[in-house]
């Protein structure tokens, strides 16, 4: 049996054989493993790999599992399972081209109003989480086309707090419901 596991961008193909009740053998990178396991609670296993025992914590997460062992934490997904679900959610966050908080936070200050011209790197919103203030900057030169939040609001990563239209772009302002 072939598992196509993935951790971040690292492929972890595993060839699994001799599956029995509580044990299997596996080959990864030409290394062979004899694995025995027993569920010790809802989210823990005792796993024995080539005779060495280790407790493991496994918790389901989105499309994959979070696995803790030896003091380290790993996020793994099964690519076959993933193929059947919606993809691409994560990539949207990578480039900070939007004014969105990096963590759940409370809006402390809004420095701009609709219609303001802003330059790249100009502070537009200050948010606060756990008593730490974080300033969100304009990602490029442009014009504020909408302010979607107010001071005191609780906001989440992905919430676009301020809409900015690039100066060098033609056409009408995008988004900006001014809610």
């Amino acid at each position, binding site marked *: 049996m072939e*598992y196509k*596991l993935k*951790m971040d961008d*690292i492929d*972890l193909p*595993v060839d*699994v054989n001799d*599956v029995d009740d*509580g044990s*299997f053998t*596996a080959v*990864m*990178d030409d*290394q062979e*493993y004899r*694995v025995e*396991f*027993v*569920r010790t609670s*809802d*989210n823990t*296993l005792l*796993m024995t*790999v080539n005779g060495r025992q*280790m407790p*493991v*914590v*496994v*918790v*389901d*997460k989105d499309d994959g*599992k*979070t*696995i*803790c*062992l*030896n*003091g*380290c*934490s*790993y996020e*793994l997904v*099964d690519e076959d399972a993933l193929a059947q679900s919606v993809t691409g959610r994560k990539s949207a966050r990578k480039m900070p081209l939007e004014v969105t908080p*990096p*963590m*759940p*936070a*409370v809006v*402390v*200050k809004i420095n701009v109003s609709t219609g303001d011209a802003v330059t790249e790197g100009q502070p537009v919103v*200050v948010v*606060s*989480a*756990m*008593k*730490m*203030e*974080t*300033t969100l900057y304009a990602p490029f030169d442009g014009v504020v086309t909408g302010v979607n939040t107010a001071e005191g609001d*609780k906001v989440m990563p992905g919430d676009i707090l301020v809409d900015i239209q690039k100066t060098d772009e033609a056409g009408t302002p995008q988004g900006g419901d001014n809610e």
Partner: protein
Amino acid sequence: MFKKILIANRGEIALRVMAACREMGIATVGVYSEVDKSALHTRTADEAVFIGASEPAESYLNVERIIDAAKQTGAEAIHPGYGFLAENADFARACQDNGIVFIGPPAKVIRDFGNKTVARKMMVDGGVPVVPGMTESNLDAKRVAAHAEEIGYPVLVKAAAGGGGKGMRIVNAPSELAAALESAASEAKAAFGDGSVYLEKYITNPRHVEIQVLADTHGNIIHLFERECSIQRRHQKIIEETPSTAVNDELRQKMGEAAVQAAATAGYVNAGTVEFILDEDGCFYFLEANTRLQVEHPITEMITGIDLVRRQIEIAAGLPLDLKQEDVTARGHAIECRIYAEDPANDFFPSPGKIVCLKEPTGPGIRNDCGVYQGFTVPVEYDPILSKLVVHAENREAAIERMKKALADYVVIGIKTPTQFLADIIDSQPFREGNTLTSFIDTYFPSWEPTLPDKDLAALAFIADGMAGKRVADAVAEGPAEIPLPWQTLGHWRL
């Protein structure tokens, strides 16, 4: 002795104080905000009083409501913990005005030390060495700039009212000064309700070493040795240890005497901490005094065997210290790691949210002062501290090994914590060699990424978990609220 104490705080420190009260046969009153209805401290108190909305100003910083809660429940004293109202002189005064004992120093002492510029003047008068800098806070940008030129860059902008690195900025050049003043003032105002800031000479390659003192109402003052608190991120301590690798017996005695002198000068009462900057030449300067129980107090408890919270309560009740300086001895080595809800791989961004899985380390010489539980949602409104992991062993090397083991055993899933980061620091050559300067993180761990040494084993565990059969119910973020009550909360009250 008091029969009932209100604890005007939340999280691990509220739990710590309640544990001491229980051992002393004192009933406890907890207070809680909207978002803390199911918090551990709310559940653990003998009585819990709702005091308002989640914003600190409406609840944990609301003097009137906390005083009301004490009156309503008949609490004779209030323990403020650290943070929130712990160093608020008006609160201490309000307690006094309402016939409630404030477990801490007199309001005047809080006010004196609370204003860093007043404190500096007081220390200068008392013969305690201080860092060169302004003796008053001033927001006039030009005058501050002039001061900065006089002191010489780099300078440090500091909040007059605060502590813990909040409202603090290092300024390397005149061009950065205005922005630093503004953001520091804004942060200080939000954190302490007072936006005053001032300047100090920024000492390069400093260590942050503090001395614990205990002073009773009968004029007895002793110190309980030093804590080395130099390992900081964003000017907040993350690892503390005692003894310090930079302090020998002679320096320890000198610093201890200076701390006792500082306390005597101020008319100090109760537990307090005198923070010093220690430079490369072994010179030390008064930095500030923390007029309350310190976050890192457990490491002092472990090497001295003295229960600081019990002592605080006894002193507040008017009992004399039955300890003389020569009775206090230090033994072994203790280290504390602060377990914050934050992501060390991502600029230490706060990481509030639901704790899906929590496994606390245990064992000989391991203590974890914890304020959360599996299933609890860590709120966005407050300090990100989840617990303080403390170890004690015969010597520094054994303490490091014990801490490594304890951190490896510490599992938190659902929110980010720095356990792996802390383990990498503890295990690093610079830490083992004792190079614990305040620049430590910037120097040796400027950008940290988790190493993932066992990804093959993780893959095997992934597969084994699938084969092992369905778990009954994972406490996933969307799952039903599970509120297991850690059993240390068993109340002692009887009908």
